[in-house]
């Protein structure tokens, strides 16, 4: 039991050190700009269709599902506001982050894991290229910056999905719908929700890299690294979300 606790604490310590190293390396030049751009492309642009489809479906389904209840309360006209609020505040960030955890964290975990077991990391190391800087810093930074952008687009697409969903049973103009949405929004809905997506992105990247970097042994460990990256990243998203919501709640 004590050994188990010690092992967990060691893991936590190693992980914290990994994060600490990220911030140290981030501010030490040279910065691998090309690799960063390439990772932004892979993480941001390539995830777009997936995130878009999920966002659209979430908006559509949420509207259709909420309608009976709202109609019961005679508040059908509040549907656009309610759907957009729940999308922006909670659903789009969390769902997008989970999708990204599935796509990005596993991708990074598997990529770095396989590089580790085929000694590509060592190869970089011995050719005096800092693999942490080249691989980790760029990926973590890219996912930290790209996930918020993906969430913003997921918000937009999700709200549009809500518009389609609303027009299934009643009709409203697109302009009227969006002005209804804007009317119901506040900076307190947007800003904390956006800030927390940076943390989502950061943890997705960091956990993917950490798991990949610490893969050891044969090819099986690559699969393990990818799997554990997704699980840990998803869990961390919920934990971060909980913390973010509680902190936001203090200010509201």
């Amino acid at each position, binding site marked *: 039991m004590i050994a188990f606790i010690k092992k967990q604490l060691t893991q936590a310590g190693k992980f914290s050190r990994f994060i600490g190293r990220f911030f140290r390396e981030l501010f030490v030049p040279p910065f691998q700009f090309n690799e960063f751009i390439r990772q*932004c*492309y892979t993480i*941001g642009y390539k995830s777009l269709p997936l995130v878009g489809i999920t966002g659209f479906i979430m908006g559509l389904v949420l509207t259709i599902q909420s309608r009976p209840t709202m109609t019961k*309360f005679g508040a059908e006209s509040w549907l656009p506001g309610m759907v957009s609020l729940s999308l922006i505040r909670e659903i789009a960030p969390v769902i997008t982050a989970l999708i990204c955890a599935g796509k990005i964290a596993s991708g990074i975990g598997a990529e770095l894991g396989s590089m580790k077991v085929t000694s590509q990391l060592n190869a970089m190391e011995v050719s005096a290229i800092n693999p942490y800087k080249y691989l980790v810093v760029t990926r973590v930074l890219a996912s930290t910056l790209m996930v918020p952008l993906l969430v*913003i*687009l997921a*918000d937009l697409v999700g709200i549009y999905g809500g518009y389609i969903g609303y027009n299934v049973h009643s009709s409203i103009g697109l302009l009227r719908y969006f002005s209804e949405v804007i009317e119901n929004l506040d*900076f307190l809905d*947007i800003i904390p929700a956006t800030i927390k997506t940076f943390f989502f992105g950061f943890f997705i990247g960091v956990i993917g890299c950490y798991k990949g970097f610490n893969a050891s042994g044969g090819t099986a460990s690559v699969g393990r690294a990818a799997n554990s990256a997704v699980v840990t990243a998803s869990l961390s998203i919920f934990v971060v979300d909980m913390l973010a919501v509680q902190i936001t709640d203090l200010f509201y």
Partner: protein
Amino acid sequence: MKKRKDNTWKLGLFVIVSLAVFLATVYFIGKSQNLFGATFHLQSTFKNVNGLKIGNNVLLSGISIGSIKKIDFVSDSTVVVNMVIRSSVQKYIKTDAFVTIGSDGLMGDKVLMISPGTNSREIVKDYGMIASNEAVSIENLMGGLKKSINNAEIITKELSEFSYKINNGKGVLSKVLTDEEFSKSIGRTLKNLETGTDEFVVFTKKMNDKNGTLSKLMTDPAYAYSIKKTLSAFEKSAADINVFTAKLNNEKGIVSKLLTDDKMANSLDSTLINLKTGTKKLNEIGEAAKHNFLLRGYFKKQEKAKAKKEKELQKTIKK
């Protein structure tokens, strides 16, 4: 290498579009809260703001022109409300305008409504003070409504009792107006009176016989004439009474109809019942409005129940 360069523009597009969406959202929200563009401030003091919050809308003639910026205490019983309003509408607000706190719908947010004054032509200044009308809160409204509902209930109850008494014929008036037996007895009395008069005529004929002693006594023409005159007058008045009672008995008469018709009484009764249920419903509206969120659903249920009740009521009336 070439492949990578080809993708860069896609990444650029992605980043720019996302940032544009974000900025547009921020801009529009800011616009809806009047953070951008030319604005001016107005202030007003209240004793009670009834839950008005920062960010609530300010309406002028029902159009949203700004929002509440700040709500502060100035003393233990006064609150000053600061609002931000689009500069473009400043010229429509005169110094004698006043503000009222209202609500956006029955259960919506509070809004601050600016009502134009009548006399002044002077336009308000930035950070100017304008007068306030204390809010008519839903609670006050509900209190008033409740009082009038109670009054209406009392009135209907009395009305109902009154008509019940008329219908069931317990009062004197009712007896006079509706008892058939009574009018028959009047008729009988009059008939008796008529036969009495007939006999009297026979008697007077005998008296007119020239052979009787009484006749002799009575044959004085002057005396006889005077008696005859009296009698004919008597006869005439009896006939008049007869006509009156006949009319009274006859159901076609207006008074009679009003006073004796059973159907009429019933319909009066049902009107009163309707009135009573109407009041009850009014009471229920008040009740429902208190449970604000459930408003519509509650009404729907009540409508169904009402329809059912009405059907039953019609059935009982038919019976």
